């Protein structure tokens, strides 16, 4: 099957092709060079006047897993308001904010997103998460394994385990759970909360293990570097949502000592405690620190006004935030000596001082971080807002007068405390293509995604340019996934199944005796049953794995 897209105005920053008009060839689901195409062209699309980009990639979106289901369970009122029927072979379901798995796949595809990654998979929840991802159609997907609070890991640190032992453990964890990357949430703090500690700053000690968050961060970050995993440690730092959190976030950045870190939903960790209300924007300092530390990447976690449910592995701070639950209900769970989760419904309001400032802080960070390769578009779906508001968010970034029209409705005190209106930057199409395509693919090691060069997956999005960028990005003319036309004019037209993206650093299975003993003695589960294996799913699940780029391990461990 050969498809040609002629007169395409291509935005493909990964291949230094920006605003170039050319013909794109798709051969059997893959982007092909002209000289490779020697058969009959089956279908031609004349894209004169259209903008063409690779499929977009969401680097951080809670689309699957147990806590997502708890969020759904807790808020039937939201789902009742967003029912949609089964039509044309597409499954029925319900939508924002904690939408169904099918809905996630369809809505992403309709917006031109062809990959999204669940960033907080509990080790014990991995098998279930993959079963849910197997019901998330069209897009490629994957998950980051959430470690750094397990009693086993804390014990390793407390006992000053050697570097290779820790590296073997991290690599095993990724393989056992079929993860693409590693995330840490409130490093060591979720564990400390189980010993009834209510906060844990970067250099404070977990009272039981005498381990600090900084140790956890540095250990895991170095492990990933040693193992050759492309995505740096995905960090949900200390002090989520806490006024004054900017200090520990800045300390984290400075303390990284050049080690790569990806700091996620940094908006929630960028709060000062100045002003009458003791809550202020730390965006400028954060952006300055990101700009001057090339080892740091961030995603923002923009909030939007409205009702949502926040879900997080950070039980400590979700529990603290439960005082602000709206409606007044919440669930927290301590999970299997590995971590936990907390679900707290929130209603963000533009007339609320704190919420208004959160909104402004997110945009300030987007606009003040200079390098679009190092800042990614997220709302921490559904925690800040559902991912379906991305087109609106893109317009806010690309159109300063549009920004102003919203800003003037914010709580007046929040307006006074924000410098957003002094920032004139407007994102360009190229910058959007970098931050939503080329950048995420590069930082995740997904070499066949995020670009339109020969050999790339034919995940291609075609837009009609429009001054109203929300309209432009909400309803692409065409979306191709692996060469199949899956959405047209913002509506899904075909469903295909994407891949489960994983990374497989090498490890020495023989060096995991300690872990095996731990599982035997304490975990209530045998180590082999803790590993997700394709055969677990029988013959009835459509699960195909795609391996992200991994370098050779370089800590001297010989691995089989």
């Amino acid at each position, binding site marked *: 099957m050969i498809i040609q897209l002629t007169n395409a105005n291509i935005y493909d920053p990964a291949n230094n092709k920006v605003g170039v008009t050319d013909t794109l060839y798709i051969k059997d689901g893959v982007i092909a060079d002209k000289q490779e195409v020697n058969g009959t062209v089956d279908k031609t699309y004349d894209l004169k006047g259209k903008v063409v980009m690779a499929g977009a990639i969401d680097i951080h979106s809670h689309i699957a897993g147990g806590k997502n*289901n708890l969020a759904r369970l807790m808020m039937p009122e939201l789902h009742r308001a967003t029912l949609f029927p089964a039509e044309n072979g597409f499954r029925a379901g319900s939508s924002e904010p904690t939408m169904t798995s099918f809905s996630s796949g369809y809505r992403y595809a309709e917006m031109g997103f062809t990959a999204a990654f669940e960033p907080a998979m509990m080790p014990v929840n991995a098998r279930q998460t993959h079963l849910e991802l197997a019901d998330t159609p069209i897009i490629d997907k994957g998950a980051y394994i959430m470690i750094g609070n397990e009693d086993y890991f804390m014990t390793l640190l407390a006992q000053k385990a050697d570097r290779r032992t820790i590296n073997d453990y991290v690599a095993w964890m990724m393989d056992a759970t079929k993860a693409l990357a590693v995330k840490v949430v409130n490093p060591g703090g979720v564990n400390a909360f189980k010993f009834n500690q209510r906060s844990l700053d970067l250099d404070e000690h977990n009272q039981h293990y005498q381990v600090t968050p900084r140790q956890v961060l540095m250990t895991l970050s170095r492990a990933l570097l040693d193992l050759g995993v492309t995505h740096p440690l995905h960090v949900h730092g200390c002090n989520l949502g806490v006024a004054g959190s900017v200090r520990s976030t800045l300390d984290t950045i400075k303390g990284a000592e050049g080690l790569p870190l990806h700091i996620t939903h940094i908006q929630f960790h960028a709060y000062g405690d100045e002003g009458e209300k003791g809550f202020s924007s730390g965006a400028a300092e954060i952006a300055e620190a990101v700009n001057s530390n090339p080892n740091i990447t961030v995603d923002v976690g923009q909030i939007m006004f409205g009702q949502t449910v926040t879900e997080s592995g950070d039980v400590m701070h979700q529990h603290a935030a439960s005082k602000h639950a709206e409606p007044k209900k919440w669930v927290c769970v301590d999970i299997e000596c590995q971590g936990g989760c907390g679900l707290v419904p929130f209603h963000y309001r533009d007339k609320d001082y704190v919420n208004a400032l959160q909104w402004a802080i997110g945009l300030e960070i987007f606009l003040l971080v200079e390098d679009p390769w190092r800042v990614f578009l997220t709302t921490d779906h559904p925690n800040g807002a559902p991912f379906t508001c991305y087109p609106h968010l893109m317009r806010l970034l690309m159109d300063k007068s549009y920004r102003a029209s919203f800003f003037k409705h914010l709580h007046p005190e929040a307006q006074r405390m924000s410098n957003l209106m002094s920032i004139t930057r407007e994102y360009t199409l190229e910058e959007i293509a970098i931050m939503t395509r080329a950048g995420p693919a590069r930082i995740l090691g997904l070499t066949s995604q995020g670009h339109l060069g020969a050999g790339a997956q034919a995940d291609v999005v075609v837009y009609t340019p429009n001054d109203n960028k929300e309209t432009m990005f909400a309803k692409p003319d065409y979306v191709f996934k692996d060469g199949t036309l899956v959405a047209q004019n913002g509506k899904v037209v075909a469903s295909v199944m994407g891949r489960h993206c994983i990374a497989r650093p090498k490890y020495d299975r023989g060096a995991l005796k300690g872990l095996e003993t731990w599982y035997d003695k304490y975990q209530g589960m045998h180590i082999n049953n803790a590993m997700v294996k394709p055969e677990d799913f029988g013959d009835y699940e459509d699960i195909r794995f795609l391996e992200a780029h991994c370098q050779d391990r370089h800590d001297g461990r010989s691995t089989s």
Partner: protein
Amino acid sequence: MTTAQEHHHVACPYCGFGCDDLSIGIRGGSVDVSQIECPKARAGFDVDDKPSEPRVDGKPVSYEQAIDVASTLLRKAQRPLISGLQADMSAVKRALALAERTGGVLDHSKGDGYSVQVRVIQEKGWFAATRSEVTNRSDVIVLLGTQAVNAAPRFFEQSAWPAQSFLPDNLKNRQIIFVGDEWSSNLGTSPQGKKVQHIKVAKKDMPLAVGALRLLWEGRTVPETTAKTLPLDQLRALTDTLKKSLYGVIVWETAAFIDAYGIDEAEVLVHALGQMTQQASDTHRIVGFPLGGDGNIVGAGQIALWQSGFPLRIAYQKDGRPYHDSRAYDGKKLLADGDVDALLWLTLFDAKDSPPACKKDTPSIVIGRKDLEMPYEPSVYIPVSIPGLDHAGVIVRLDNVVSLPLKALRTNDMPTACDILDLLTQKL
């Protein structure tokens, strides 16, 4: 007597507690059940691998014929009930798709207890913990009106008195306190001889005791009329014990509350316990650990949540839109009242999970184990192989997060529930 095959670290789907440490010997296609100590596991694994025949109106037919008749019955139905749902994840996915496709009602045979917990979470929530947290961390376990072993036969051996914990002091100092009516004296005694403490509260007074515990936690006075019927000093001492605990766990069994007090009172109780865990968590680490989760109801609920956005008890409209109401869409009641016009009963784990009674003219399709106890001859019966014995699959444990891989321990030529549901769906 030779054992042909020995499997170790086998996960067991026969209660929600989800042990995975069974050793199972297969001899001539049958399980050597003499090795299995847990009564639920022994009963579940005790089934041979001989093929069985499908039936239509009690007469043996081929699988094709049975599927033909079943699909006709489903096609004619305006509102079928698809329930039982005691199946592995892949089979549940298919049953759910079928319910969406046919405008059916979806429930599970253990839906009552589940629906109570769903409502409590939708109303207020709770602070809970999973099994290995209880096993390792707890220093106080309060069993509220449950002896635990009916729901989880190995609760004491596995979680209450494990051989070791990585927090050895918490285990060494662990106290287990039963609040309730009768306690058989040696039940739950630790290998070292530590006994379960018993605070005797008459069955009828349990709701009062839960209320009193909440008041005592808050430091408020228990009304005199209530106090008279309760062992207040002991409940006060229990509150002090919890306040001194490092990690306290409150264990209950929602289904047992329903049996004892009816569904409404059970809901009030679970609600109160949920709130107690929330309130206590302001200053302490006190968590809830509800027992239950039989027949992979938790896993079935998870699929319902990610596919429809709602927990179980869903009525799909003709266009597939899911309407959820945990009271209204009680499958057994709808069936008894004639508010559904066909039954598809899918059940692969508990051989006693019989299809519920239906009206005389309501057609019934049963996809189940070949040793399923059948109180009446269904219109169509399709025997299938068993996950965790004949084929691989996945279930989710009682604590909502942990999934277990079920292994194929022997080969069996019978079709799987997935095969049958796929064929049935194709015919619709």
